[in-house]
């Protein structure tokens, strides 16, 4: 990895790290972008793998989406990532695509950025001068733009496991299975011992220039008894948290309406899972 960051330091803007290549290579093929140097990360062993420490799960950037999908630690400690993964592309894409590549590419319609934002994940970023950590809230700057500078490399993502009773759900609306989502939602709801909501995480994709959090929805959920929350009513508030654009696939208005209905549905899924978990004890 020292070699990678020194190459990035040497070439700056002229170099681009290549992760799974499932977004970068199509962009190169279509001549949407070009670089003098491509730095292939696929043989950098340190950039692969999932480790758990002190209640946190660290997923190295080159961990393939297919590996995230089947990893027992991820399924147990960061269930939202596990639930989101099958929605990424197709299995052939997930065999190569990586979690770090997806997050660093920062397509506003992709799944992992929304999950990272919802869960307050942290990005570990390295350069020739050292390593720094950036919280998800400061990571996504605009469409395809992140806090990672040209001479830096996204090395890993870190997620803290939730230590309370919690329910998680993920879903998205797409024209066809595997297509980029028109809108999507990633939801985590945590409760205290009395069953009151004390953590609400609602991430949205496809409805703004970056992944977004549905802050109005989160605020409305906090302090409610989970059993009394009306997910569909509260989900509608998400329309105010969106900043969608219209394109050939769907108008901005459609994205806002379908997206907020979806937030309600996914919220209902998370609450149902929470009730079931509480019941199972």
């Amino acid at each position, binding site marked *: 990895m020292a070699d990678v960051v020194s190459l990035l330091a040497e070439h700056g803007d002229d170099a681009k790290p290549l992760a799974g*290549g*499932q977004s970068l*290579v*199509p962009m190169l093929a279509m001549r949407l972008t070009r670089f003098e140097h491509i730095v292939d990360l696929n043989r950098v062993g340190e950039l692969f793998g999932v480790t758990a420490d002190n209640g946190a799960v660290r997923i190295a950037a080159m961990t393939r989406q297919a590996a995230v999908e089947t990893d027992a630690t991820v399924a147990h400690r960061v269930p939202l990532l596990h639930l989101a993964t099958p929605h990424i592309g197709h*299995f052939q*894409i997930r065999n190569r695509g990586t979690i770090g590549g997806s997050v660093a590419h920062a397509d506003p319609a992709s799944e992992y950025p929304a999950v990272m934002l919802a869960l307050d994940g942290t990005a570990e970023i390295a350069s020739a001068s050292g390593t720094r950590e950036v919280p998800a809230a400061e990571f996504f700057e605009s469409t395809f733009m992140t806090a990672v500078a040209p001479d830096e490399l996204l090395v890993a993502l870190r997620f803290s496991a939730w230590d309370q009773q919690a329910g998680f759900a993920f879903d998205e609306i797409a024209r066809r*299975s*595997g297509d980029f989502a028109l809108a999507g939602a990633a939801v985590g709801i945590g409760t205290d011992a009395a069953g009151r909501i004390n953590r609400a995480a609602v991430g949205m994709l496809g409805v703004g220039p970056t992944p977004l959090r549905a802050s109005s929805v989160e605020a409305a959920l906090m302090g409610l008894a989970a059993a009394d929350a009306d997910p569909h009513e509260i989900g509608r508030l998400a329309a105010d948290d969106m900043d969608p654009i219209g394109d050939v696939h769907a108008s901005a208005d459609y994205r806002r309406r379908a997206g907020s209905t979806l937030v309600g549905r996914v919220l209902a899924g998370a609450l149902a899972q929470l009730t079931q978990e509480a019941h199972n004890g």
Partner: protein
Amino acid sequence: MADQISLSMTVNGRTRRGAAEPRLTLADFLREQALCTGVHLGCEHGVCGSCTVLMDGEAVRSCLLFAVQADGAHITTVEGLAPDDETLHPVQEAFRDCHGLQCGFCTPGFVVSVAAFLEANPDPSDDEIRHGIAGNLCRCTGYQGIVAATRQAAAVLKGEGQ
């Protein structure tokens, strides 16, 4: 022109040595140097699935990999699925039986994808089959025959006969 990098990979059981510019895709290497013209290039940006091959046993888009990245890898193309020239793989047999192809352009990608899919999920439901083939596009036959072929191949591979 950039430097040629020498590389070596196993393609359908045989070692292939060659040299490639870093920008050459694996798909182009397989077609032009390994002469595996069953690797079809439809969209060349990862959407259509026609160029699907197995790399170290996993289905991948060969148009989204550079040949140099496959140095040392084991590649299986559609030509390498069946044990010999006289035999078809059960997935190929099933595509023929069930009218799973018409013009045949997308077929190699489908066959390789379905073979990998059934390896991971030997007993899929129809819904799972439809998800399994969602990463490959067919623009003439339609998908009914392909779903039926996948169902038949699953049964044959499980040893349930035809």
